């Protein structure tokens, strides 16, 4: 493990609680909610035409 990598990991650990990273967490959650919504739509299509 290089020193550069250790430094980068330390920086990332410090940044993980920043507002910007929390904002990205919200975006990720929205993408996953979108996936769930799509699966529900597909479920209704499947049932409607069964």
């Amino acid at each position, binding site marked *: *493990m*290089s020193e*550069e*990598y250790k430094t*980068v*990991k330390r*920086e*990332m650990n410090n940044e993980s609680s920043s507002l910007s990273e929390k904002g*990205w*967490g919200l*975006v*990720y959650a929205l*993408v*996953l909610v*979108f*996936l769930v919504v*799509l*699966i529900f739509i*597909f*479920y209704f*299509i*499947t049932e*409607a*035409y*069964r």
Partner: protein
Amino acid sequence: MSSLDWTVLFSTLLGIVGYGTWKTYKNKNIQTFIGGKEENWTTVGLSVMATQASAITFLSTPGLGYDSGLGFVQFYFGLPIALVVICAVFLPIYYKLNVLTAYEFLESRFNPQTRTLTAVLFLIQRGLAAGITIYAPSIILSTALGWNINLTNMLVGVLVIVYTVSGGTRAVSITHKWQMAVIFLGMFAAFFVLVGKIREHAGLMGAFDLAGAMSHMEVLSFKIDPTDKYTIWSGLTGGFFLALSYFGTDQSQVQRYLSGKSLKQSRMGLLFNGVLKIPMQFFILIIGVLLFVFYQFEKPPVYFDQNSVEQAKLKGFAPEFAAIEQSHARVFEKKKEQALQYIDAVRLSKNSEARILRAGLRASEAEVETLRDKTKELLGRAEVEVRSKETDYVFISFVMKYLPQGLIGLLLAVILSAAMSSTAGELNALGSTATVDIYKRWIKPEASEAHYLAASKWITVLWGGLALAFATFAYMVENLIEAVNILGSLFYGTILGIFLVAFFFKRINGRATFWAAAFSELVVVVLFMTTDVGYLWFNAVGCSLVIAGAVFLSAMGDRFNYFSD
């Protein structure tokens, strides 16, 4: 094909290639030639999408929708989850280490040996796949349209080499953006023409009712059956690992999103794919389902690969085929009548009548299936070599027979643009990995920027030449596409295992990972040579063995003081 179609086809292809080359030919810096680092999120997102969507996507996927309905979309359910993991875990490290290739990161995390092993595995696997990306659509286009296969290969291969070598990653990204614009335009045009043709017999809702009656509207399957290829479970788990492996560790994709001008732009480009990929695949499958409905009213051939049928007829099987075609015409007329009555019954809410007609439709469809099976059996008896699945010809047959002049040229431009976009992504990645991870790292570590730029261009030309040679001689290998898929499966699992250890097992070092990966690759190759295990399982076996082996060797390290830091 009319002169208007040829004009649309060539002006579209040459226009995009010319624009990409003109915008980027002044690129004189190895960092931007390989890394790009100038794109906004829309370009990144479209470039990621264009690399993944090959010509086969637009030839085969409508055929899948036609043949078995919408279930294939489940294969993509794991993709958004994988992209979120990559955005949260992989991307920030790649950015902060300012790497040009994914394998460069492995040297920082582990050691030079692990980086080189992974880069070599990637080069073997992707080098072979690049030839197939050119060959697979060429064989279908040459069979369906009578084009010369070598000329089709050359058209795609040479154009791609020109702009990939001239402008590097930027040229690939810029051309990807316009190729995707043409692809979307062409697919929407095909959709609206298809809907227009179906409207002569049924509205869009009636078309979906009819498709549903014949089991083509089942999107989700909750069955727990390992032999069932597309279920929600296989899509969420298998699809997740496949997408994680492809998007997170395959340089042809990593290079695309690292071309973003900031971490934010790259993340947005990837998430754009996470949101759009499933609807896009669903839309292409819907085109296939509508083709299925269309061919309930317009008589399709018994077998879409007409070239193979003609060959068998010439070998003395014409009377047998004539008998099958006669039966097919009779069943088609019966089924068409049932379809029209069913649409009316549903529209007028005559439920009991609709139920009876539905059973009749399914029975008629089963008769058609039997006739298709008889055709396949005859082709086997005539010893006709069938090089692609029959359903690959469904969409291209429709395009050639039913689309108006001009649109045929546009749809062929869609297919060739898709072939070029995925080939460009692959050649760009092969050139970058061979330059950065092998040439610069081991052969000539100290040289000028200009030297590496020239080396990178020559290496890309070399890979392009190899891909073209492979595509040219590919017809000599039987079941070539499957052979390449098998080879891919031999390496993908090990590569993913190495990256998963790198990102998620902080205490495991390079030596343990390297030896676990070498052992895993050996076991996978031995299993492949000595057993009949289905090749898709090699991905899971390779990945699990690297992780388990690295954990084991790392634990041993405390005892032998070799595998620990």
